[in-house]
């Protein structure tokens, strides 16, 4: 419960910052001004400015947007592709299950980073290519979780009951399997979200992610890495932001898992 609240608060804060950045940021985060470079923390610049004289707080806010955007799309795509794949593998014929499992192996074994490098080299590195690479790399985990969970659901008596009621396989997948694996998938999403945030940061750090001038936390880290000794703030701020985002999502995931666990749910309101 506590982790749900704490995780929710952290994630909420990031979402809020991202949303607010559409309407207002203290400064234009892309506005370069040599006169302002490397200013410390003061009233005008709450988190100071970077090498380009850009306001760090503003960059942080807009960077939250990138972070969420990459996470949402990558994880969303992975969930949308991986979940049906997993369900299909669980309920379809055996060979299909086997095939999906093997393809999963392959994708897992294929370096996601390489995909990012190749996409970046091929189409120009961008938030989009990073998103695709992260998304593709995330598909197997969804497919696997969905398949395992669906296989379990399919052996339950309520699925048997649904069949004897005359339900067709598709209806069973939609009405029974999906709702019962949804909890796990939500948890999986939140975990993947955290991983995606880290991956985006790592890719941006290698110059394979979000392109300038769009701010991104990974990019902020990369651009100020050399200033660690001179202006540690520039490394610490995005570093902490990334850590808090990942922490937030993983706490949220833990919280949701507890929340969606029928055993825990059952105790509270049994018998009424």
């Amino acid at each position, binding site marked *: 419960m506590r982790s749900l609240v704490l995780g929710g608060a952290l994630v909420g804060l990031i979402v809020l910052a991202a949303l607010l950045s559409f309407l207002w940021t203290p400064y234009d985060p892309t506005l370069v001004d040599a006169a302002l470079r490397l200013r410390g923390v003061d009233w005008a610049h709450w988190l100071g400015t970077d090498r380009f004289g850009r306001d760090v707080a503003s960059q942080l806010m807009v960077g939250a947007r990138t972070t969420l955007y990459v996470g949402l799309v990558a994880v969303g795509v992975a969930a949308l592709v991986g979940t049906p794949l997993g369900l299909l593998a669980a309920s379809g014929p055996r060979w299909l299950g086997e095939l999906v499992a093997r393809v999963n192996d392959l994708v897992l074994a294929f370096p996601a980073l390489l995909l990012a490098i190749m996409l970046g080299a091929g189409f120009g590195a961008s938030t989009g290519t990073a998103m695709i690479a992260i998304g593709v790399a995330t598909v197997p985990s969804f497919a696997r979780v969905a398949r395992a969970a669906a296989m379990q659901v399919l052996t*339950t*008596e*309520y699925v*048997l*009951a*649904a*069949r*004897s*009621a*005359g*339900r*067709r*396989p598709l*209806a069973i997948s939609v*009405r*029974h399997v999906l*709702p*019962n694996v949804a909890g796990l998938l939500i948890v999986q999403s939140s975990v993947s979200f955290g991983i995606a945030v880290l991956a985006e940061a790592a890719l941006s750090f290698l110059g394979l992610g979000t392109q300038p001038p769009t701010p991104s936390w990974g990019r902020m880290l990369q651009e100020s890495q050399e200033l660690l000794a001179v202006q540690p703030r520039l490394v610490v701020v995005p570093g902490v932001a990334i850590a808090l985002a990942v922490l937030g999502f993983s706490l949220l995931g833990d919280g949701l898992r507890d929340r969606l666990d*029928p055993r825990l*749910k*059952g105790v509270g*309101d*049994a*018998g*009424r």
Partner: protein
Amino acid sequence: MIVAEELSRSYRRPRSTPFGPRPQVRALHEVSFEVVAGQRFGVVGESGSGKSTLVRLLAGLDSPSSGAVRFDGQLVSGRRQRDLDFLRSRLQVVFQDPMGSLDPRMRVADIIAEPLVAQRIPGRAERVAEVLAAVGLPASAADRYPHQFSGGQRQRICLARALAPRPQVLIADEPVSALDVSVRAQVLNLLSDLVDRYSLTLVFVSHDLSVVRHVCDTVAVLKSGQLVELGAVEQVYRRPRHPYTRQLVRAVPTLRGALAGITAADLTP
């Protein structure tokens, strides 16, 4: 009404040795019987004797390895699911585990309405209310979730679901095995009532011969997938012919027996 003809079903187990054959488990072996309309047909047998396998075959939820199942003369076995609509509306199943056979994420009303939806039977809301009342659950139960009910109540929900499409045959697979004695009595009473009221044909599966004796008029005894004895329940109970049946009858501890001085040693062969 239901005819089983030389029903066999074997399962393949995973290999036990790297290059060996995949062992086959004969869950059911050449079982034949007939259930006539209005009959209360009991099936007993120990765990793993093939009772649930038989239920799945009778209900067209699984296909036999050989043999056939007929319902009212129509072939059930070997048909595709979508060709079994005639069966679905007329034959319903109640499963063993009252929690496990209810989708934890569906409301009771939706659970009960499921056969109606699947078979496109109109008038859902009224029918749900009707059967809820018939199994003795309050109308308010409709909006709640399975975990909010006790074991006996859940089994009532299962019964309500089975009754919803107005079936002629009810198959119950160990419907009271998971219940306490006191609740067992409630559910057995209810089941009897419903069978009487709707003139159902009942196939009742249990490992407990005394329960079958209470509920059924005819009993079939399964052992390791084979039908070892079939007959009127009282006759089988009092004069079991097959040694296994004898053993089964004997091993059941009874209060009367115990108080009359039967010890544990007497229960074993």
